[in-house]
């Protein structure tokens, strides 16, 4: 069995709500794969994850973790599972150490990675959790999800509240975890974050999985457009990037500044720029919402 997580026409309707929160979502995540579930807030990412964890019951369809049905065999499905919610709720009166001990005892497995994780993430374990900042609480949450070295990790917006340094440490942790063969499902609304971590991404909107692609496709595909603001020492000549053809486009130009959108490899652009004196190059973070919407409309048009 090579699949770690399988969703088969998973459907969820809350009460008598007119819209489905999850509409026949089918996806397969192979063992050892890091899969990103992307979408704006309210798209259905958390519903998919909460159904997968058996917190909420599917209206139709089914899902399995390591071959175990998440409803009928939830205990087996949770045996080697790590879970972290974005706005993780912990027991405030316990110290980090007491909390991790409790969670370890409930998991019923040794926690070989606990000490290393506490050190790696600089986790405060000797203070009541309620006295910790949001970021430090999130770190305790990360340790409880990773400490028993589970085969499958489900992380719902895991970097929320982490400062940039800790986000880096988290990306390293994900890479190390992948290296030991674990499968990770991570939800996010941050494209850059997903590109850093994942092998494959699925786009979810209004409860439907509308698109799936590998991250390498993401770099060159319709979502692979990168935008830069380039400031030259002196106004650049007109038609500077024309040799790049359709892969590059000037979005805005004026004085010494030029906004360029480029698809695919950056080497040709850098080669052109090397002939001029450049003051700064600033990359614009991809605006997932916009790109995502354009992708969604494309998907609609194709129907």
């Amino acid at each position, binding site marked *: 069995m090579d699949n770690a997580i399988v969703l088969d026409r998973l459907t969820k309707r809350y009460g008598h709500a007119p819209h489905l929160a999850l509409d026949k979502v089918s996806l397969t995540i192979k063992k050892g794969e890091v899969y990103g579930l992307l979408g704006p807030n309210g798209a259905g990412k958390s519903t998919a994850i*909460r159904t997968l*964890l058996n917190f909420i019951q599917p209206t139709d369809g089914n899902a399995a973790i390591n071959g175990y049905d998440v409803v009928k065999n939830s205990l087996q499905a949770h*045996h080697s599972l790590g879970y972290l*919610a974005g*706005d993780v709720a912990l027991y405030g009166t316990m110290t980090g150490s007491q909390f991790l001990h409790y969670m370890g005892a409930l998991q019923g497995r040794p926690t070989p990675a606990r000490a290393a994780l506490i050190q790696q993430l600089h986790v405060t374990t000797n203070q009541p959790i309620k006295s910790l900042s949001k970021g430090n609480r999130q770190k305790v949450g990360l340790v409880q999800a990773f400490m028993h070295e589970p085969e499958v990790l489900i992380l719902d917006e895991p970097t929320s509240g982490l400062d940039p340094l800790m986000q880096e440490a988290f990306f390293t942790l994900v890479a190390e975890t992948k290296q030991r063969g674990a499968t990770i499902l991570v939800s996010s609304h941050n494209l850059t974050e997903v590109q850093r971590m994942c092998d494959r991404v699925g786009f979810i909107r209004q409860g439907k999985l509308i698109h799936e692609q590998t991250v390498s496709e993401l770099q060159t595909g319709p979502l692979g457009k990168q935008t830069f603001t380039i400031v030259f020492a002196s106004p650049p000549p007109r038609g500077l990037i024309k040799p790049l053809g359709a892969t590059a486009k000037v979005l805005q130009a004026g004085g010494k500044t030029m906004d360029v959108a480029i698809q695919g490899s950056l080497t040709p652009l850098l080669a052109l720029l090397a002939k001029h004196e450049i003051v700064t190059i600033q990359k614009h973070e991809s605006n997932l919402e916009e790109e995502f919407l354009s992708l969604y409309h494309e998907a609609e048009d194709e129907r």
Partner: protein
Amino acid sequence: MITIIRWTLWQRRWSLMWWAIGMVGMIALELGFYPSFRDQAGQLNQVFDQIPAAARSFISDSSDFFSPTGYLASRVFALVLPILFTIFAISLGSSLLGRDERDGTIELLLSRPLSRSKLLAGRALTGLMMLTLLALLGLAAVISLDALVNLHVAPGPVAAAVAMSALLGLSFGTIALLITCMGGPARVASVGIATFLAFAGYILASLESTVHWLVWPARLLPFHYYHPSELLHNAYHWQGPVFMGGVVVIGYLLAWAAFRRRDIGA
């Protein structure tokens, strides 16, 4: 499940300690005053007899208010212990799972290899253990003060009355747990509904001897079956424990049926 029980007890240890201190303090306060009017018990009973039966039934299920047994029944077993145990059990019943669900910590527990049935059983057993512990402390306090102020009420009937008032509280605690397990808006209302049922039952049971048609609705609620003064006089009826035990067992089974498959956090 043992892990759940152990850690829940640990989390609740201070709250249990304060409840125990409060309860022992109230028992001491009630019984400590008895020697000051022991000698006038006869006259006081005569005055008490002039109060209408309906008003009297709010204070005690016994017409003998100032004898040692009557005083113990009306002050400790008709007021302090059933009210304390009921409030304690309702607060446990509504919070043992409800607090985790409200705070979101229930997700941490249920993402482990822990079934909902075991989580519910672990939490319910913890509640039962805490109530039992409180009841045992209450029993020890009553027996000690009984000896200190020379009430001369035998420990056997006192133990039966303590057990019965704890069972009364447990039945309301189970109702609160059941409402919490149903989820949705009911979860928030669990304390209110269980408290309403407790007070309605208390009032109905007090009035049923005067307003006879109230016997029927009163029979549906646990207070109707709670007669501490009879217990202290060694008169024992099986209906009480059977009815309250039935409420606890059926309430727990319904709570399990409601909780095992429903959406968490809904």
